[in-house]
């Protein structure tokens, strides 16, 4: 019955690069009818061998190709080609040819200022995504709270979800979750636990162990208090060294510079360096090979609070990050694009890893789920957690939700689903059995392996 409610969308994805494929993979996973469009027959051949999609080869700005790929019946057109202009044009044509919604990747900083709104409106774009900007925002959040491996923000202000790794001799080892609140006065909620390969959505009698990686939701202030209690609070970074002068580096350096953090960017290409230094008057831009350990040490790697490896090569990022961690940099973040290397980096002891394509896929999926949802209750935020094994969603409660006004302990909630937070007005509530959900609340739900589209789906 639940499946009938779920509307299958016809989605056309143009441009099958790294990000395109990761979006396709997620869409197929959720059971949508996907058509993959790319100009290279070899690329399409590879994709149709692995994913259950239909392939089309051709130019995404050519009406005939688009018509053949079925754009007229498409519920959603996603343009993920390498050029912003192509994406915009393709979306515009697709919209005119009958696609109901369009998403374009637009990543040129020049388009991502005040002109973006105008273009979105005029081109009829439903959503513009900028992978580099999204990745930079993630990095920014991680650098603001260096104690956490990951930080996810929600639309509701001052409420966040962080992931931390318990030390082997942690005081929390052997403590059950129901005791956690009594022992430590912190108002927090453990919403998932990763132990080795397994992911648990824990109940009250779940007992924590050392080396567990736990996801915590709470208000920002409570998280600070809790980390201090655990003696895990690291100082916010004051100086950051960034390897690689990509677009992400630019966005990140700008954000960090705005709050007065010292930024040093190391980039090989001289031309890039000059552009960067022109755009970022406050940052120090160094032209040199970042894989040269001498150079890194000379530029004060050991004295930096944080090191972020953002070059185009995953291997390079991993190796230099290991070096930086060995030199005592307290917060090291590594950009890894390939999923296979992500696990490897994790094994090598690099804990903070970002993958821009996953961030983009999250944003696209949030949009797709919201569209899919016929009853109109809103998914505000969607994050994949713990290697895609669980997800966190933020809903706004509408009047027709079937769980309003009932104490949580009386709700028959499905296995593997947890209500991780309720935000009423501006006040975050860490829910207990006696709390109720009211209309207008923002509710944060964590679920394993289930793809929720609506708040009402949490009930059995």
């Amino acid at each position, binding site marked *: 019955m639940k499946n009938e409610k779920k509307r299958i969308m*016809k989605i056309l994805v143009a441009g099958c690069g790294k990000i395109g494929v990761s979006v396709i993979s997620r869409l*197929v996973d959720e059971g949508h009818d*996907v058509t993959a469009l790319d100009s290279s027959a070899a690329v399409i051949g590879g994709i*149709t*061998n692995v*994913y259950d*999609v*239909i392939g089309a080869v051709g130019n995404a700005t050519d009406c005939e190709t688009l018509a053949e790929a079925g754009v007229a019946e498409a519920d959603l057109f996603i343009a993920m080609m390498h050029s912003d202009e192509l994406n915009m044009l393709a979306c515009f044509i697709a919209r005119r040819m009958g696609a109901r919604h369009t998403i374009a990747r637009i990543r040129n900083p020049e388009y991502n200022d005040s002109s973006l709104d105008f273009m979105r409106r005029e081109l009829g774009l439903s959503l513009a995504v900028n992978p580099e900007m999204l990745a930079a925002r993630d990095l920014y959040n991680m650098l603001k709270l260096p104690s956490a491996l990951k930080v996810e923000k929600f639309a509701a202000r001052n409420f966040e979800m962080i992931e931390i790794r318990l030390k082997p001799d942690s005081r929390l080892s052997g403590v059950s979750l129901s005791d956690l609140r009594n022992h430590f006065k912190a108002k927090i909620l453990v919403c998932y636990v990763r132990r080795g390969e397994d992911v648990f959505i824990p109940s009250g009698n779940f007992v924590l162990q050392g080396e567990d990686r736990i996801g915590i939701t709470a208000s920002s202030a409570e998280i600070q208090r809790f980390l201090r209690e655990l003696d895990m609070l690291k100082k916010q970074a004051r100086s950051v060294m960034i390897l690689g002068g990509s677009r992400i580096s630019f966005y990140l350096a700008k954000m960090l510079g705005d709050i007065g953090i010292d930024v040093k960017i190391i980039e090989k290409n001289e031309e890039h360096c000059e552009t960067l230094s022109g755009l970022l008057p406050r940052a120090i831009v160094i032209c040199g090979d970042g894989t040269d350990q001498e150079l890194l040490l000379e530029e004060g790697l050991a004295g930096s609070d944080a090191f972020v490896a953002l070059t185009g090569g995953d291997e390079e990022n991993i190796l230099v990050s290991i070096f930086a961690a060995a030199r005592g940099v307290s917060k090291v973040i590594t950009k890894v694009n390939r999923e296979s290397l992500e696990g490897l980096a994790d094994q090598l002891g690099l804990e903070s890893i970002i993958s821009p394509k996953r961030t983009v896929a999250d944003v696209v999926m949030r949009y797709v789920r919201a569209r899919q949802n016929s009853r109109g209750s809103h998914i505000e935020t969607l994050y994949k957690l713990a290697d895609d094994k669980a997800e966190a969603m933020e809903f706004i409660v509408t009047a027709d939700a079937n769980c309003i006004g009932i104490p949580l302990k009386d709700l028959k909630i499905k296995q593997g689903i947890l209500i991780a937070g309720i935000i009423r007005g501006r006040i975050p509530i860490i829910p207990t059995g006696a709390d109720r959900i009211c209309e207008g609340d923002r509710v944060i739900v964590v679920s394993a392996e289930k793809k929720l589209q609506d708040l009402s789906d949490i009930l059995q």
Partner: protein
Amino acid sequence: MNRRMVFYTLGQLTVLEGALMLLPLGTALLYRERTVSSFLCAIGIAFLAGGLLMALFRPKNRIIYAKEGFIITALSWIVLSAVGALPFFISGEIPSYIDAFFETVSGFTTTGASILTNVESLSHGILFWRSFTHWIGGMGILVLMMAILPASGANSGRSIHIMRAEMPGPVVGKLVPRLRDTAKILYLIYIALTTLLILVLFVAGMPLFDSVVNAFATAGTGGFCIRADSIAGYAPHLQWILAVGMLAFGVNFNLYYLILIRNLRGALRSAELWCYLAICAVSAGIITLNLMPSYGSISHAFRDASVQVASIMTTTGYVSVDFDLWPQLSKAVLFLLMFVGGCAGSTAGGLKVSRVMLLLRYAKQSLMRMLHPRSVRAVHMDGKKVDEATVESISPYLILYFCVLICTFFLLCFDAFDFETNITAAVTCFNNVGPGFAAVGPTQSFAAYSAFSKLVLSATMLLGRLEIIPLLITFSPSTWTKK
């Protein structure tokens, strides 16, 4: 290689085959025949063996690649035939297991070559199963499995490798994004067309049982008939219906899908379709003219010529007249038609019209390159450039095709038959047609061949149905060694 997944899929397939045998079991029950117990026994063995395979080889990792796709397909068809032969053998209606195996392979590969000398003595249940194998083999049992199994893990996007290996034709594509839906659509079209044919035959005056089994044999372009004289004994208008039916099932099923989604223009744009119809028309014309002197009546000559052209071209192999007695020219035309076969993506065998077209265009392009060494030319089909990998795969296929044909012919020569018999036996089995000339001609059977030759021909039929590559890959040693 993912061996667990290979054997697990084989298990699933065996169970599915057992389930499909419930239909002939029902027929046997309906006619109150003693073969009921044979079917029960065969179904029991299929369920047990399949269940055991599934239990023993529960895969942890369901990822398969092109290699596994080929191997799964090849082994599936061998197991399918081995299990499918059980009812014939257990019931004792075909006493030798090798004969039963040959008959089953001939059924599943939609060849229609038979070792039976007295078909009419068989029971209804067995006859039903015999023709039903044509129907299953026509569209492919693995495609059926994909349509039935839930879309997850074993039935993910990677199953495209299996579908490619099983579906005939140089290029196999999907109709809709999801493989499972594609398989479902193909089978729904197949079932709808078969039902239509049953109804038309029945309304036109054929007995119900005959309508059903003949529709199965026609739909799969197989050619098993339940009468000793094949379809020659049916009234002329029934023969015409069967001829149209055969031609319809020799058309690429993608075109029916295009018609279904009201894209008639797209369907009519297919060059293969027109080429296919043109070859039929020209062949029928030549044979009619050639037969005229001996027949006298033009309508009779035209009917025999058309029915026989449709039957041979679509590799069905129904016999409406003993064409072995026809003049040499007519026999030569039929012999050549055996090679051409039906359209890609249909239930017919042979080289396939589109492959022949590509081959000729490729040859022409190569000739042009000799004239203008620096010229760059692409091969076109339906107004589009054909993928180079596809074009390049055609000539190796043709080489393998003739190698297999020559090997089969040579191995058959150990039996003391004349040249014409052996060569046409090899050609007719390899192209999944059915009857040949001389001692394997329309009124004869394959019963006289030795057990060895029957096994050779069984292998040839499988090679023909699966288009060589899957079997060759499966039985080349380097596939199985860990290198």
